[in-house]
């Protein structure tokens, strides 16, 4: 079955991963801007990174028949230095017209600090001014619950419509509030942190399939670029219908992402 992986960091993955994803049915991916594992030393480093996201990766993905899209921002892990983050944000508009850019992301919070919140609010204002979709990163582990609530309040205060915002990395303790407030929810399938494929399917069985998707968030850490097709297998193992599997791994991401006119993936 074809699928969309709506959150994966292919700059950190090998070409073999593109090949294996294509073999597993991946038709399209979206790649949010994120932290490289080290702080970049200058805004020029981000300029190069945005070129990689808008030029290099789409070409690499196309070799395997995969459509590549991206989101641009300063990741919250590099938002503590407000002056630096603002310098980087000043170059984002230069890239927003590129053909594979879907919106602003993955913005959000990391340690729930005041400076992170300031830069989040400025990103949200940028998204509103430029009428862009938003992909939100929620914090890790013990910081997730608090950060998710702070983020949802910030989005509401910014006047963005919740159904144009995807709140990612939800787990059992955050998914209900995210959906109840009208946002889209993303479940990230990780081997240790976030959700395993089994827990993600448990969440679908508990909270339903409306406004929710699954992604691998594959990157340079422990992660699995084939996590979405593995979750499809898990759903099949439990006897869920092909239509339900298609809903969460194709129809739902396509519905949300198609709110950007630049997301262009044909159905079968």
């Amino acid at each position, binding site marked *: 079955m074809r699928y969309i992986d709506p959150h994966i960091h292919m700059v950190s993955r090998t070409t073999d991963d593109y090949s294996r994803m294509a073999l597993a049915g991946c038709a399209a991916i979206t790649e949010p801007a994120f932290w490289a594992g080290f702080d970049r030393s200058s805004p020029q480093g981000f300029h190069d990174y945005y070129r990689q996201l808008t030029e290099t990766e789409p070409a690499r993905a196309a070799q395997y028949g995969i459509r590549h899209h991206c989101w641009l921002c300063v990741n919250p892990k590099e938002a503590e230095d407000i002056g630096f983050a603002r310098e980087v944000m000043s170059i984002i508009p230069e890239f927003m017209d590129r053909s594979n850019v879907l919106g602003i992301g993955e913005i959000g919070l990391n340690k729930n600090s005041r400076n992170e919140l300031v830069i989040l609010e400025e990103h949200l204002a940028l998204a509103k001014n430029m009428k862009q979709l938003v992909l939100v990163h929620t914090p890790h*582990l*013990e910081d997730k619950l608090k950060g998710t609530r702070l983020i949802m309040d910030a989005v509401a205060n910014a006047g963005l419509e919740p159904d144009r915002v995807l709140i990612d990395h939800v787990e059992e303790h955050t998914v209900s509030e995210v959906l109840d407030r009208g946002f889209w929810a993303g479940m990230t399938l990780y081997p240790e942190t976030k959700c395993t494929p*089994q827990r993600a399917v448990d969440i679908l069985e508990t909270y339903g399939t409306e406004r929710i998707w699954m992604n691998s968030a594959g990157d340079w850490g422990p992660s699995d670029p084939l996590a979405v097709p593995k979750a499809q297998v898990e759903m099949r193992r439990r006897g869920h219908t092909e239509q339900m599997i298609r809903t969460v791994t194709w129809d739902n991401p396509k519905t949300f992402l198609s709110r950007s006119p630049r997301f262009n993936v044909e159905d079968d």
Partner: protein
Amino acid sequence: MNREQVADAYFLEHRAKLLDLAAFLDRIDRADHDGSAEDFRLIVFRSCISKLIDGEGDRARRILDELSDHTTEPIEAAPMKGAIGAPPPA
């Protein structure tokens, strides 16, 4: 899937995870300890284990809730990039 089918599908995998959990706690017991206060992560870990057998449902959500920071105001500055898995004592 009915209950028996769930057990058929997942018992061996979670039997192994149960033994990992038991071995981890044994490893903690064997490790040198200087008599100072128990690590806050292990205190909350044991509390979370009690939720597994308290007869209530919704265990995953309740455990994640216990492992979460419940303050509501942003902190002054980020002390590090990562997270440790349980909120440190105030």
